[in-house]
């Protein structure tokens, strides 16, 4: 239980760190760490498939994308660094939010949990995806196609023009 909550706290810390990091590269890496923490939480919840996907895709692929983009703009970014004061205020803001929310949110979430409805559970992830969430598969296909066309559209081949 403590371990479980600790993982959540860790995720929160990584999140804050990712925002506060001075270098964008650190931010990207902290985001990857956040993803790793989230995937650990998934494992801890007993959701291995989600954890594996999270670890490989989010902590892996997305981080690679981020690092690529960051390296592209790093030179410019370093010339015009951001005003850091706003980010130094983040822990303070988080603390204020956390303390203020402590009085309201847990009680509210407890109340929310009373409206729960237990499911049968069981089944395998493959069956669940295929039987229950089949339209989502179509959505995924569409999403991937859309991603390809977005990249094609934003970065067109312009060999014939030049």
């Amino acid at each position, binding site marked *: 239980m403590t371990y479980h909550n600790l993982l959540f706290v860790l995720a929160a810390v990584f999140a804050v760190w990712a925002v506060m990091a001075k270098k964008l590269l650190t931010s990207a890496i902290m985001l990857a760490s956040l993803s790793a923490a989230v995937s650990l939480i998934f494992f801890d919840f007993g959701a291995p498939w989600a954890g594996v996907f999270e670890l490989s895709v989010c902590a892996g692929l997305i981080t690679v994308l981020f690092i690529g983009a960051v390296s592209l703009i790093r030179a410019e970014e370093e010339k015009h660094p951001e005003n850091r004061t706003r980010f130094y205020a983040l822990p303070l803001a988080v603390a204020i939010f956390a303390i203020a929310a402590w009085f309201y949110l*847990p009680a509210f979430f407890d109340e929310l949990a009373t409206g729960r409805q237990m499911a049968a*559970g069981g089944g395998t992830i493959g069956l669940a995806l295929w039987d229950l969430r089949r339209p989502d598969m179509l959505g995924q296909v569409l999403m991937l196609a859309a991603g390809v066309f977005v990249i094609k559209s*934003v970065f067109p081949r312009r060999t014939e023009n030049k």
Partner: protein
Amino acid sequence: MSTFAMEWYLIAIIIFTGFYCMLASRSIVRQLIGLEIVSKAAMLSVISAGALTDNLVYAQALIITMIVIEVVVVAAGLALLVKNFRLHGSADIWKLDSLKG
């Protein structure tokens, strides 16, 4: 206080962090990172809700789809970032204020 409430409390804090980032940051990369943080928190809420109701398989099925979406969204966001960088030579979203009135 139940575990569930604790989990969601922390999730709320993470969401707050993400939104703060989106509000405070000028860099499009950090904007995207803030977005990522928010969506990570949203995923956590799904899995937590699934665990609470013993519906983890279903929740995992959702999360897998969400991860696919997330990748494409981030890719699209980064593509826009790069295009903006090529056009304007910066990745500062606060400078984008030519459309107004």
